[in-house]
């Protein structure tokens, strides 16, 4: 299996298929250890042609899991407490 360990920003294209805002600059908190950071600073594991896992750089908890299979996206966000997105109007 061709698994690549990359940065959160590497997942921006894949995450951009389902989120219509820039995810890599959004802040998150890890459900497991509480680390708060930006998605771009998290770790990304890409399994080619299968999916993408965004992991916490502190505790390795899976923050976001995204898979694409038979015409459907599966998005698992159990690993994050919140996503905080900038309000550009303010």
């Amino acid at each position, binding site marked *: 299996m061709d698994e690549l360990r990359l940065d959160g920003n590497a997942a*921006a*294209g894949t995450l951009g298929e389902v989120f219509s805002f820039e995810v890599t600059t959004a802040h998150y908190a890890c459900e497991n250890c509480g680390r708060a950071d930006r998605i771009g600073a998290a770790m990304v594991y890409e399994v080619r042609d299968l999916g993408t896992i965004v992991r916490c750089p502190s505790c390795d908890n899976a923050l976001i899991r995204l898979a694409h299979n038979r015409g459907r996206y599966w998005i698992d966000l159990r690993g994050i407490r919140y996503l905080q997105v900038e309000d550009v*109007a303010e």
Partner: protein
Amino acid sequence: MAVQLRRILWGLAEVIEVVPETPRTKSLLLEVPEWEGHEAGQHGDVRLTAQDGYQTQRSYSIASAPEDERLMLAVDRLDDGEVSIYLTDVLMTGDKLELRGPIGGYFAWEEGEGGPLFLVGAGSGIAPLMAMIRHRGAAGSDVPTRLLYSSRSYEEIIFREELETLASRDGALEVIHTLTRSRPEGWSGYDRRIDAEMLGEVGWSPEESPLVFVCGPTSFVEGAADALVRLGHDPARVKTERFGPTGG
């Protein structure tokens, strides 16, 4: 209230020129209709579709400045790279390429963010850093900038001449090379992989709180980023972009 909404859609880019940069690396100069502009450091995804419908895609950093007329991607030829071999060996002027972008707002620099700027790259990891250096030049910025760039040999230094030219006429831009495998006769520069000692000698001190961007193969980036944090740099000001195990 508003969240900046934006879908990243696939479009067709036209290849204007394929420029050999080094024995292993080529630059693709692309014309992209309706390109909305990018920030220095962002990347694009390239998608190839075979006749039987099989699709595969890779990310490539954008090496051109936002101000440049053409979009430039730097592509390393990997011996087992199904995409990079096509892009470096087969692709010709006039060909069309599926591209989406710009992607990623995290590993990006805009001259208003200031500096000083410490750019650390290996191999084709120079691409997004080159976009920052070109953007800095095009914007007339005088942000003090140092590039520490690791290549295997003198011949494999990507954008060597342009870097020389830019540094020779800009007192605030310094380019420091290290050559890890072979050196030309009389080489007086660094001759080893980038390590903590070199980062300490070349980079700004943590007290000057530089913005640091590190790009290259995964093992290189992790080693350099760890060393920078151990030297006392604020992890929030050290941004990394890993290329994966092979780089490119």
